[in-house]
């Protein structure tokens, strides 16, 4: 009942004209970056954070989260119409979406994707409203020891799930954690690794790191070879055939549940539920041979799952202050910049803010449904903007975004350095998401660890004495062992293949 009342009060915040406007701007930008290949929601969120400095916190977060879930809708359009995924979560949609478009059924593919995304988005927001407050109450029991173990578990998931190799994931994690120690120590305020430079006292800004690693590196990759845009397929009816309604509805339902629960796990990203949903639909289908040749469930399931994931992924952020994906990590940065501390106390101290953001996600999903059904063809035309024009525009936007962090060229230089690092890392297949996630978690983890050690008279025994912490440590060991085992098994497999 409290959740229902909270959601109602949230609508009174979300439905004010200026918050509606910011929500519209957010979902439009999200849709736009989803449509444009090469610019993902992570880059766009990082780019727009500096512009939110002057805004009220609730409006800023409404706009930035609009970019996050809006990006999921936009990526579908280009996947279906021009076989070019706008973001990672829509890669799987190309398999059947583009096949449907070639068969003259682009409208039906876009229709079920938009409806599935809407259903997934709305149900996951309701789930967020129902699960968020009790989880936040439970999280109030968490002391520094439990928080440290939880974050350690989150880090292990990040390393274990992202990228093909755990060693490469750990390398990225170490880079993120070491970068997070630059600046003032969180307990005593001692300066570390600053080289006596004043601009390093507060550490390196998360936004510049993210813009370099995700945005600039993508521009470098894109500038290697500027290919021309593909031609979009024609759109006719947006509705599936009568015989497909039942299978599509079940695919949407399964995608919703799957996406929501995967969103709760730290270290995942929106591509994972989409991929899992596709494999699940293929396994459950009576005609698995149709997959890859225009199966409508192959579009409905993954598209629903990646949107449902967005609502689920907001739960660890709002209740525990732990980001579960790179875009959420950037959002966490935005929370901090606006003087808000994500975590259980947020529901108590800023209920209007939390419920306003949650309610705005319902409103934003409704806006996106309208944008995607009647206006899909118009959005697809945007994707035909030539890369030779697009990348320079994104570059100058990135530079301005980095400059506005502290109105100093230092941040532009930092972005440039991380752009080169990101480019090299992409080339040798080192995942970049762990850097950003561990960078965000690093300072919090260190603080929690030092506090825990202090509380236990200089000992780490508290980590195994607390039942919650012990559970997290056990889970961490299981995930880590599983990842290492998988790595060794893959290594053996690779050697066997080489010998063959």
């Amino acid at each position, binding site marked *: 009942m409290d959740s229902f009342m909270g959601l109602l009060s949230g609508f009174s915040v979300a439905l004010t004209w200026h918050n509606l406007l910011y929500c519209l701007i957010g979902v439009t930008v999200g849709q736009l970056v989803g449509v444009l290949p090469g610019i993902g929601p992570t880059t766009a969120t990082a780019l727009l954070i500096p512009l939110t400095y002057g805004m009220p916190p609730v409006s800023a977060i409404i706009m930035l989260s609009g970019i996050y879930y809006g990006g999921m809708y936009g990526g579908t359009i280009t996947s279906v119409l021009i076989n070019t995924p706008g973001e990672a979560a829509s890669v799987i949609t190309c398999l059947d979406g583009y096949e449907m478009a070639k068969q003259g059924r682009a409208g039906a593919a876009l229709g079920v994707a938009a409806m599935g995304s809407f259903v997934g988005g709305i149900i996951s927001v309701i789930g967020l409203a129902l699960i968020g407050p009790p989880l936040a109450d439970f999280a109030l029991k968490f002391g520094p020891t439990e928080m440290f173990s939880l974050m350690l578990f989150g880090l292990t998931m990040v390393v274990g799930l992202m990228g093909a*190799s755990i060693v490469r994931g750990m*390398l990225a994690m170490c880079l993120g954690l070491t970068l997070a120690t630059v600046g003032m120590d969180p*307990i005593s305020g001692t300066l570390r690794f600053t080289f006596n430079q004043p601009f390093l006292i507060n550490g390196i800004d998360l936004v510049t790191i993210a813009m370099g690693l995700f945005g600039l590196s993508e521009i470098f990759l894109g500038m290697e070879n500027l290919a021309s845009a593909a031609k979009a397929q024609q759109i006719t009816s947006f509705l599936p055939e009568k015989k497909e309604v039942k299978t599509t509805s079940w695919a949407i339902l399964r995608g919703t549940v799957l996406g929501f629960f995967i969103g709760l796990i730290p270290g995942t990203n929106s591509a994972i539920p989409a991929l899992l949903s596709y494999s699940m639909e293929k396994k459950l289908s009576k005609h698995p041979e149709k997959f890859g040749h225009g199966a409508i469930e192959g579009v409905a399931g993954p598209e629903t799952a990646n949107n449902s994931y967005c609502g689920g992924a907001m739960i660890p952020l709002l209740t525990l202050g732990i980001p579960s994906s790179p875009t959420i990590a950037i959002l966490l940065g935005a929370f901090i910049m606006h003087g808000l501390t994500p975590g259980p106390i947020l529901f108590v101290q800023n209920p209007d803010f939390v419920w306003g953001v949650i309610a705005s996600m319902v409103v934003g999903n409704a806006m996106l449904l309208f944008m995607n059904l009647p206006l899909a063809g118009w959005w697809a035309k945007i994707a035909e903007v030539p890369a030779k024009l697009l990348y320079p525009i994104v570059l100058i936007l990135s530079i301005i975004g980095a400059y506005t962090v502290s109105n100093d060229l230092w941040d532009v230089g930092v972005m440039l350095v991380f752009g*080169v690092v990101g480019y090299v890392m992409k080339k040798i297949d080192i995942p970049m998401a762990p850097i950003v996630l561990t960078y965000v978690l690093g300072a919090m983890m260190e603080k929690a660890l030092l506090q825990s050690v202090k509380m236990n008279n200089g000992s780490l025994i508290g980590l195994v004495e607390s039942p919650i912490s012990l559970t997290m440590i056990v889970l961490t060991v299981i995930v880590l062992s599983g990842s290492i085992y998988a790595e060794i098994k893959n290594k053996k497999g690779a050697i066997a293949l080489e010998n063959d």
Partner: protein
Amino acid sequence: MKDEVTPENKGAFGELVKRQNAGLWFGVAFFAYAVLYFKMSLDIPYHSKLGAGPGMYPRWLAGFSIFVSLVYIVQSCTHQIFSMGRSFPGRTELFNVFTVFAACMIFLFLLDVVGFNIAGSLLLFVMFYRQYKALHAIALSIVITFAHYFVFKVCFSVPLPEKFLSLFGF
């Protein structure tokens, strides 16, 4: 005696670079970074009056980073080999990437001297000039830069440095 650069030995150098193990070099660079980080962490107190000092966490982290970098180096040399030739694109593509990087560097050096509009136009022109006719490239560079300037400086009050337009009161 200095070696003269001939097409033959230039090609041989290119082949040598292509054969290099990119993963190994990255691992070595990260190892050096971790060792430097460890050395610097030794200068920070390990203990404090509160118990654990500001140097404790970095020191353990540095040790772990060194271990991970060594495992990565071994992995890069044994079964996950990324050769430069296969991982990185050809000379033309790399030149395109370098152009963007160089344009950004020029922008960095010029911004405070000539202001955003001239530095930005130059940055965009460097990226456009091989894709469009010269006149189109100039026009596009100027229009896009001024549009960005208008949106960010005028609409969002971002203090972009400007020398040229400030003469006209913008």
